[in-house]
């Protein structure tokens, strides 16, 4: 069964550094998403992406964040200058338009 994959599974970075989280959505899906889950808290919507542009973003998704679909398979989330409070689990999801399928997540630790 096709699935969403994410790399790396765990990323440790120093405050102020740039990180890129990578996702490979399910191949025939057209809608792509990033969510964040701070430890012990609920899953929060960050951004959705369709037709090579952002279709919606939350208040969390500020200028430090960007997304890109650099080729036909990858979908990336970049954090330009990480802060301690960016430490969280980041989930990618993809969809044909209805239910969203989630990847296993990348745990980002900012020290």
């Amino acid at each position, binding site marked *: 069964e096709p699935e969403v994959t994410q790399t790396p599974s765990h990323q440790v970075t120093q405050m102020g550094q740039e990180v890129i989280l990578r996702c490979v959505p399910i191949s025939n899906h057209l809608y792509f998403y990033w969510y964040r889950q701070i430890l012990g808290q609920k899953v929060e919507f960050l951004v959705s992406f369709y037709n090579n542009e952002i279709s919606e973003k939350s208040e969390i998704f500020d200028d430090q964040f960007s997304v890109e679909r650099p080729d036909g398979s990858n979908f990336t989330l970049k954090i330009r200058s990480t802060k301690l409070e960016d430490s969280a689990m980041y989930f990618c999801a993809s969809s044909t338009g209805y*239910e969203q399928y989630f990847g*296993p997540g990348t745990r980002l630790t900012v020290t």
Partner: protein
Amino acid sequence: AQSVTQPDIHITVSEGASLELRCNYSYGATPYLFWYVQSPGQGLQLLLKYFSGDTLVQGIKGFEAEFKRSQSSFNLRKPSVHWSDAAEYFCAVGAEGYNNNDMRFGAGTRLTVKP
């Protein structure tokens, strides 16, 4: 915008007992409703979903949920819980429309199963 409330932060049940996890949503139009399960250190697995039609939906692992518009609820049930069901459960609501962009999650309910 839509929102979800899961009133129970933590529930403990004995193995073999029945289970009901509560979910209340707030949304002005027809909601798309989902239940996801998350095991420790794992991603989110879809248990079941409601878009339209029969208000009692069946999911994987023996779970079911009932959509009650009058109560704005979408409670998850299982008649007999197994130890492997111990996990965090999230209810989520998506906006009406082809692309449920803005899916909002509840805070989650942690399920502990006693032997």
